[in-house]
Every structure is written in C-alpha cells, then in structure tokens.
C-alpha cells in the first residue's frame, strides 16, 4: 500500500464522518421543524402536564442546546434517549432488539445473494448464448426490474397463501425464509449479471489465452485465473448491495411482519415517535455509509491497477 492509497483512505473516512454528521444534523432539525411537536395529536393534555413532559424530555431548552446535548449523547454515550410512545423503553434497546432480527435477515440474504449470484453468473458466462445463459439472463432481468415490495408480496401469495409451505408471519418458526428470499433475489440477479459481463471480459484477456496454450485445464483456468479477476466489479457492488438490503428490509419487514429495525423505523414514522425516528435513521444511515466506505476501500486495495483520482 503506497501513500497515495493511504491518502485516499483517509479522505474517504473523513468524508464518511462528515456524512454521518450531516445525517444527524439534518435528522435533528427536520424532526424539530414539524409543527406541533411530539405531544400534539394525542389525548388532550393540560398546559401544565405538557410543560412537565417537555421539561422531562428537555424540550423546553433552546434548540441549539438541545442539538448539542443530542450530539454529545450520541458521540460519547451512544445514547438516543427514551422513546416517546413505548413507555419505559430506551431507543437504544428498541434498536438493539430490532437489529438482532434484521442483522440475521440481512447477513443471510447477502451471503445467499453473493454465492448464488457468482455461481449463476459464471455459468452464464461459460455457456454464453446457449440455452441456459438465455434463461438466466431473462430471469435476472425480470428480478432486477421488480421492486422489492412486489417481489415480497408475490412470494407471500405464492408460497404462504397458495402453497402454504412457509408461514406468512416473520416472527413464527421458519418465518424468516420468505423475507430472506425476497431480500436476496434482487442483489442475486444483479451480481449474476455483473459476474457474467466481467467474466466474459476476463475470458477474452491474453493471460487466459496463455494459460489455455500452456494446457491448463478448464476448471483451473476458471478458478485459478478468471474468477478472481472477474470478482472485482462484484466488490464494488458490496456497499450498494448492503444499502439496498437495508432499504429493502423496510418494506419486507412490513409485508411479513418481521419484528426488526426496519419495521420499527416505519412504525415510528407513522406513530410520530420522534426520538425513535431519529435514532433508527442515524443508525441505519451510519450502517450504509460504513458499508459503502468498506466497499470502496476494499475495491482500491484489492486491485492495484485501479488508478486513484
């Protein structure tokens, strides 16, 4: 690793920190710009009760002070404060509880998408323009242009209602099968197409021809030479894939009633639970920013041929 790469990494980390700060700031001020505040719309409360509530949650202080306190709590204590609607629970606990389910969902979906995508893509590239390649390309094109909520709903109709193979409720036994499938299909299709095109490009390179001329067996060419190099574009997709899985999980958890962080986020928005909205937004956003960062850095480190800007 040379100084140029190091400079690039430092620059990217700085940008990521600034981005997370922008997210926190935007989220804070946007949520405080909502007219009425968090306590309107509920049962009518008297002025004194409202004042007491606002004092309890620190809402009576000037906005600038509130902002600084909030920022300080997050940075030094990773503390998002109490939830307004779920009495006695901290936003941290709710996020942590949801994260356990969502992380399992996301990680399994990502692994399935990666493995099956690379395998299908390699098959399609090796059997280029044959029947199996055509089939794979048609199916992946359909999957790529189908929004995740539609994919989820269709899987729900087919596997949960018509065939009754898996439960429709994500909280029950085997309930995570359909949500995982829904989340993994889009990235799988994307990775398949990515692997296919980059594999085709690599197979046309001189060093592959050299290997063939030396008499290296087909399998060895694929696994020893071609696959490693054709996976570089897949690495660039690492960040966007995880970001897509996070946003996809918002609707997927809604469809299958999975008790995860995505569902907590959507419910907090419709239920106007402001600290929870801010907390989940910041946590999910940080997650996406970090994933993108890791993806970018990996990409630059893996392939020394890539020139840095």
């Amino acid at each position, binding site marked *: 690793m040379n100084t140029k790469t190091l400079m690039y990494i430092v620059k990217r980390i700085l940008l990521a920190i*600034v981005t997370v700060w*922008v997210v926190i700031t935007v989220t804070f001020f*946007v949520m405080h710009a909502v007219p009425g505040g968090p306590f309107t719309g509920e049962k009518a409360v008297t002025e004194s009760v409202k004042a007491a509530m606002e004092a309890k949650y620190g809402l009576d202080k000037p906005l600038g002070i509130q902002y600084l306190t909030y920022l300080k709590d997050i940075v030094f204590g990773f503390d998002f404060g109490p939830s307004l609607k779920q009495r006695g629970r901290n936003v941290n606990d709710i996020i942590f509880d949801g994260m356990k389910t969502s992380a399992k969902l996301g990680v399994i979906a990502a692994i399935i998408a990666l493995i099956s995508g690379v395998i299908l893509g390699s098959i399609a590239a090796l059997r280029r323009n044959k029947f199996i390649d055509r089939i794979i390309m048609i199916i992946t094109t359909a999957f790529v242009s189908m929004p*995740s909520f539609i994919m989820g709903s269709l899987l729900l109709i087919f596997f949960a209602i018509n065939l009754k193979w898996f439960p429709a409720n994500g909280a029950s036994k085997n309930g995570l099968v359909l949500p995982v499938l829904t989340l993994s299909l889009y990235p799988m299709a994307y990775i398949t197409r990515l692997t296919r095109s980059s594999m085709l490009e690599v197979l046309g390179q001189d060093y592959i021809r050299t290997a063939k001329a030396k008499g290296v067996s087909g399998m060895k060419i694929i696994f020893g030479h071609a696959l490693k190099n054709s996976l570089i574009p897949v690495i660039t997709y690492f960040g966007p894939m995880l970001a897509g899985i996070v946003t996809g999980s918002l609707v997927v958890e809604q469809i299958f009633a999975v008790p995860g962080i995505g569902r907590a986020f959507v419910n907090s928005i419709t239920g106007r639970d402001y600290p929870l909205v801010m907390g989940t937004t910041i946590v*999910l956003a940080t997650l996406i920013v970090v994933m993108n960062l890791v993806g970018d850095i990996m990409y630059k480190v893996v392939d020394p041929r890539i020139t840095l800007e």
Partner: protein
Amino acid sequence: MDISKLNAQVNMDDFIPATDEEKEYMVQMRPSSTFFKDSVKRLLKNKVATVCFFIIVLITLAAIFVPMFWPYSYDQMLGMTPGKPVDNSFNDLKPFEYGRSEIRRMEAGETVVPHIFGTDSQGRDYFIRVVYGTRISLAVGFFASIIVLIIGMTIGSVAGYAGGKVDLIIMRIVDIIYSLPDMLMVILLSSVLKVVMEGALDGTVLAKIGSNIISLFIVFGVLYWVSMARLIRGQILSLREQEYVLASQAAGANGKWIILKHLIPNCFSVIIISTALQIPSAIFTESYLSFLGLGVNAPMPSLGSLASDALNGISSYPYRLVIPALVISLIVLSLNLFGDGLRDAFDPKLEK
C-alpha cells in the same frame, strides 16, 4: 508523326473533359444527416428498444385518454347514491361481476360497462383506479426527472465552466449528498414535509395535487440532482478546452452564452440518456413510498398505494396485487431497456 498511331490501343475520346451533365450524373447527393437523425436511425434498428418504446407510448396514451371516456371515476363509490342507503352489493366484486342495480338495469335492456378488474372494498371500479394510478406514477416519474435535470444541469454546468473555488465547493457538497443514504433521507424528508406542506398549501392551486406529491418533488429536487450534476460537470470540463469555446471567448461571449449555446448542446446525448434512466428510478421511488403509506394522498391511487392496499385482502383477492405489480414492473422494465437502447444509440463510444 501521328500520335494516334503510336497509341493504337487507347481510345482518345475517353479523355475528353466531361460535360456538366455527365458530372451531375456521377455525383450522388445524399440528404445531409444530423447527429440526432443518425441516433434515431440506430435506435430504430434496436428491436428491443423499439418495442419497449411502443409499450411506453401505449401505456402513456391509455393512462391519459382512458379516464376521459370511461364511465366510472377513480374515487366514485358505485354503491353510493345520494339520498339512498349504501348498496353493499358493489363492494369487492370479482372481475366481470355486477352490482344489484346494474343487474336490474341490464335486465331492462341497458348496456353496462363491465368492471374488468372488479371493484375494491369500497365499491370503486378497480380498472379505472389502476389506469389512474398509472397516470399518477408516470407523471411523478416524468416531472421528477425534469426537476432533477434542470437543477443538475444548471449546477453541473456552472461548476464545470467556472472551475476553481466554485467547482471545489460545489463538488464537496455533491460528494456529501451523494454519500447520504438516499432512501432513508427520502422517507424522512417526505414524511416531515408532508406535515409541513399540509398547512401551507391550503387554498392554493397546489393543494389539488396533494401535499405528498409536492413534497416528493422537493425531495427529488434536493437529493437526486447530484449524479446529473457530476455527469454534466465532467462533460463540460473536457468540452471547455475545445477551440470553439476559445473562439467564442475571443469574440467576447460571456459565460452564460457559452454554456447555453456551445457547452450544453454538446452534452445533449449524456443529458438525454441519464434523464431517460432517471424516470424509472423516480417511478420506483414513488411506488416504494406509496407502498409504505408516504406517497400520494388518498383517495388518489398510485400503483404503489394500490399494491399496498391490496395486501389487506390478499388471500381472497390476489389479482388486486398482481395487476398493479405487473404494470409497475412492465413500465420500469421497458423504460430501463429503452434507456439502454438510447445509450447505445446516442453514445456509440460508450458501448458496454
């Protein structure tokens, strides 16, 4: 000495200068072809893109014109007649079924337009709701892309042409917005803007469009211009070193003139391609938000909100989900394929 005898094999008549008529015969005049014409020709050769283009045109025309002559409207509850009790026989009709009063009218010899997709749980004709939802989704996609185009083009060309500090500052802002997780920000901003706009819009013309769609446009304008700006800046950075820009500067043209007359027209292909690819992503985002309940205001339908409403009765009426789902997928797929075709046709260098 007689020359013709020495060159017996050559017919000297062949070497007489050609007359004007003969010259005319030799010259083949072709109508001059512009870049645009060439590209359209290349596009028409691409069968997939052409078919997709016709599908889009067909869907668009249907979405515009069908609601004009269809006897039902998207928010009309068919069982409700003023002054009479609600007729529940109109609710949840299967395709090609009729309500009680309609059956009576048909027995009397009148023709009743069938409910091709049945009705929804509130007795509204589902076919017209799907058509209307398509109209909303297409309109949102189209106008959102135009907004993105205008903002991105302006900022990108200014950054590219001005260079220096202006460029540096703009590109840092672009970098930050670009690395924001867009969907989360879209959800957050549109859910808050919706509440803010509701009060502000009352009584204005915009109230008719609905606070949700307006806030969606604003969010698009704020977040999605960055990739367009980056693209155009990159193009302009290389274009502004061309001789014709120097010539124009020497002739005393100002920056605005050079950007509008020389630089932007030369970015034409990039602009057209990325706008075409922006439309399906805007439609995608709108349907995603509508599905989460943050899209268009009820009772106005959009394809996403129709799909989301259908989830409630999914075991009895699965087709209510399948129909809008198919329409969204068809629109997004054909727009994407058409966009790819446009890219190949308008930018042959970029071929992947």
